[in-house]
């Protein structure tokens, strides 16, 4: 019997939809907005929290859990552009970085079970470093900003963000639509 690609895709699709997390519409709107406001407001009183990239963590979570690269791209693009607008960056710097993060996170979410804490921790570390490196690369290449890339600081901050991300993902799991 010849292999039917259509039926195989259908099986894969059913597997994916079985693991795919669903969220209510208000969660998809409120959580990113709250993340942006938190990132813009709380460091006023606790400056070390400026190093917590909550917008990136939310992007990673929604991209991985929705299992849809297109959704991941849209979430990443929206969060990144909003971040650019609020930080008075040239529009697109964080947009491009987070779009790529959203795409790759969703691609991983399709193939791996991302509900495991270790996988989430690793994904946060890798995507944080990737995001920071890409932003640095674009700043140098596109904006001609001669800034140094501090690997040591980036690795430490990736660990910090990953630990916070683990707790955040656990909280966001509770907002999943159980129906």
């Amino acid at each position: 019997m010849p292999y039917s690609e259509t039926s195989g895709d259908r099986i894969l699709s059913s597997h994916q939809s079985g693991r795919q997390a669903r969220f209510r519409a208000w969660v998809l709107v409120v959580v990113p907005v709250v993340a942006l406001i938190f990132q813009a407001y709380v460091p006023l009183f606790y400056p070390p929290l400026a190093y917590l990239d909550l917008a990136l963590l939310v992007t990673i979570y929604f991209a991985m859990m929705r299992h849809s690269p297109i959704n991941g791209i849209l979430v990443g693009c929206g969060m990144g552009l909003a971040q650019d607008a609020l930080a008075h960056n040239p529009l697109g710097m964080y947009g491009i970085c987070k779009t790529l993060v959203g795409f790759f996170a969703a691609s991983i979410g399709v193939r791996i079970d991302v509900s495991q804490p270790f996988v989430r921790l690793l994904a946060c570390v890798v995507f944080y470093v990737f995001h920071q490196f890409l932003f640095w690369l674009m700043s140098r290449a596109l904006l001609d900003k001669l800034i140094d890339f501090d690997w040591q600081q980036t690795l430490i901050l990736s660990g910090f963000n990953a630990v916070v991300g683990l707790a955040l993902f656990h909280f966001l799991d509770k907002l999943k639509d159980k129906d």
Partner: protein
Amino acid sequence: MDSLLNRYRSITFLLVMLVAQMILLAYTVKNPDGVRLIRLWAVTLVTPIAQVAETTRSTVYGVFHNYFDLRDARAQNRRIQAERDQLKLENLYLKSELGTADRVKALAAFQVRSPSKYVAARIILTATTSASKIVVLDRGSNSEVEKGMAVITPDGIVGKIIDAFPTASQALLVTDPEFAAGVVSQKNHVKGILHGAGSGKCRIDNVQAEEKVDVGEMFFTSGDDRIFPRGLPVGKADVVKDGPQYKEILLYPSGLQAGPEEVLIVVAGVHQEVPAYEAPQPDQKVYIGPPVPQSKADESMPALSTEADRLREHYQSIGKFENHTFGTGSVPNFNVKIPAAVAAAGSAAGTSAATEKKPEPSKPVPPPGTPLATTPAKNNEPSAGEAPPQNP
């Protein structure tokens, strides 16, 4: 073709989004004010929520603050009633007066005494990245705030408005590397350009290495940048180093040291004079004890003298020996041989070690301008043309 696009639709969509954002990025870099709509949406979306959060925080903080103040006041009242001490009562009154002088009152007082026109604003958001030093203020173009206006506190400059929206505005802090302002030092009036150093410090560029800048010297705005009115405090020089061509000067901006929450936006700036430098108060009078009384042994010790002193005393002893008065026009015989007793008596008045020694044989008087060390002292014989020694 359709099936191909359907199969790779994620990649296609990603590429479309990336290309679109690259175009947007290029356009934004070329025209910073060209894409206002996205910024306007983002700020308009976030600002009301942030204002509600800030108001809630202020209210809760105020309630708790007042509650604890009230508790302290009651405790103090009980203590006062128990002690019945008038001095403590006065002290408490003064403390409570100081406690009520909050920042808003300080800002209002500054507004009254300063000739410039200000709009008070609160910092409600900060940048969403750790790299840039940008804050969002709760006053926008509805309150006459425009791009390029200065943001200050009574302590010093804070930043400048880089974008004004209807209900909010974004300000670039002085510590941002892209910030620049003209400054002048208070004491030596050295001009330079203030730049953010990225951290909590600022640096002052374009100060020639030959210029004089002291550590701790206060810097004020020079008004050359047409943003900050002249005469606003900037900060004290913390580090001053000489470079090959320019000085390296670092300072902590005084406007950011207190972590400002309320700021003033200069709507109409008026230049003022840089305050005159006031030298620090001289040290207090220091008690110096009486000198140690000299013992006889000390008195017998000869005083230190130079070659000129010794020569002068030698001439004085010659004048005394010949009963000559200097300054009368005549010239004494400087080659005369003075007895030791007379020489010792002449040197006693001058307390010179040189005159206590046995006087040297008379030497020919060198002409004016001749170095003394070159004076020959070979013999005591008078040379030709010189007067013979005269005995008294």
